[in-house]
């Protein structure tokens, strides 16, 4: 650790110091920070003001002068915090390294969006961003049951292959065509399609490519152009039992499939999402409808009057 004399000569906390003379965080510093639970905790050991000033210095370097090296340094400094937060979610069926990667995206967003004028610590600002990114990952990319990694990867590959084949063939592809294009057997394709129903990607706020970032357009934006068409069918389908419990987009997709007679591929093209996503949304909407109708249990609607239910 630097002694007072050394800091005076080569002080990274001196905001007026030319960038070339700023002391880089050493591996020793990182190790010590990590051992003490991250830069903030590290600050308490070596002097809270020092660490806060180091953060502030690096953030100023990056935000005021565009110093990319300062940004990289901040990312490296806070990776132990990302690992620590990712560890909390590591037992939920996702690879720890993947969660660290996702958490690091949250960290980078926090560093990039940090507002120097607000006077908060980077740790305070970064933690909810990192956790939020990890949670979003589980919500948008997570699987409700454990699916072997190979099948998950094939599923992702199939998503792309279907999107490529539909416009190319001008029709929905067959299983054999999918297998050939995805370099898999028809049995593997069928299994991957079956497991895709365990995929939790139901959030219509998430972007169609599954990234789900705040800057990404959500499905709701893709549906914007359909609002007029939606309004015309609204009166009709909201009257159907259980439909009131579905959100606008779910009603719209069910309307296209069952009232307008569009195929899943056609709906995918119309709405701007993948066919597999349409399939999942239809099944989940039907499941919710079934639950809702079961709760309503309205014999007037489902059965002719006087008919014995059994």
């Amino acid at each position, binding site marked *: 650790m630097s002694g007072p004399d050394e800091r005076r000569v080569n002080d990274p906390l001196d905001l007026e110091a030319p960038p070339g003379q700023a002391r880089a965080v050493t591996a020793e510093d990182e190790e010590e920070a990590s051992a003490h639970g991250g830069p903030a905790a590290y600050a308490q050991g070596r002097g809270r003001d020092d660490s806060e000033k180091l953060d502030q210095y690096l953030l100023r370097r990056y935000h005021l002068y565009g110093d990319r090296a300062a940004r990289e340094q901040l990312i490296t400094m806070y990776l132990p915090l990302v690992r620590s937060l990712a560890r909390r979610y590591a037992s939920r069926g996702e690879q720890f390294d993947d969660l660290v990667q996702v958490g690091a995206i949250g960290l980078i967003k926090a560093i990039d969006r940090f507002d120097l004028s607000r006077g908060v610590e980077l740790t305070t600002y970064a933690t909810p961003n990192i956790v939020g990114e990890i949670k979003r990952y589980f919500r948008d990319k997570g699987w409700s049951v454990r699916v072997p990694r190979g099948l998950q990867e094939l599923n992702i590959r199939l998503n792309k292959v*279907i999107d490529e084949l539909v416009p190319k*063939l001008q*029709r*929905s*592809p*067959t*299983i*054999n*065509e*999918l297998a050939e294009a995805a370099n898999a057997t*028809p*049995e593997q394709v*069928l*299994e991957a*399609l*079956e497991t895709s129903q365990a995929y939790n990607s139901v959030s219509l706020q998430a972007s169609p490519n599954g990234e789900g970032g705040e800057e990404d357009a959500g499905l709701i934006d893709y549906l914007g152009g359909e609002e007029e068409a939606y309004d015309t069918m609204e009166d*009709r*389908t909201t*009257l*159907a*039992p*259980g*439909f009131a419990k579905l959100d606008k987009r779910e009603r719209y997709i*069910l309307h296209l*499939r*069952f*009232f307008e*007679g569009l*195929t*899943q*591929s056609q709906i995918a093209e119309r709405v701007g999402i993948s*066919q597999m996503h349409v*399939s999942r949304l*239809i*099944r989940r909407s*039907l499941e919710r*409808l*079934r639950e809702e109708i079961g709760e309503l249990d309205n014999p007037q*609607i*489902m*059965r*002719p009057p006087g*008919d*014995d*239910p*059994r």
Partner: protein
Amino acid sequence: MAERIDLEVPATLNALSTVRMVLGGLGARLDFSLDDLEDIYLATDELLRTALDADPLDRLSVEVLLDEGVLRFTAGTFKSAKLRADVTMHAEDCLDLCMLLRRTVDDVVLEDEGGAYRIVLVKRRQGGPA
């Protein structure tokens, strides 16, 4: 030449996945498109779920007949009047089982057997290669 596959599974929701996998394999053999397969998955899933709710069964018998681009799915036998009504009667503007089946398969037939009946869903290959 027609090919017939008989399947008997426990009358539970978990077994529906097995039925889907078998149907997927057979549909693939007929060169059904993904849209066609999704239709037959939805139709059989919704039909069998309703059947499991309506009729207390221990085992579920399914027969699949393949013949020149046509998949004929038969389930039963059932006795429930509610299931019969759900399959055959449609309430206007209601996305009920009857409408769902009409939109996903080409024909729905009830075959009476004494006091019971079997339900037949017919799906013809449509969107696949010429």
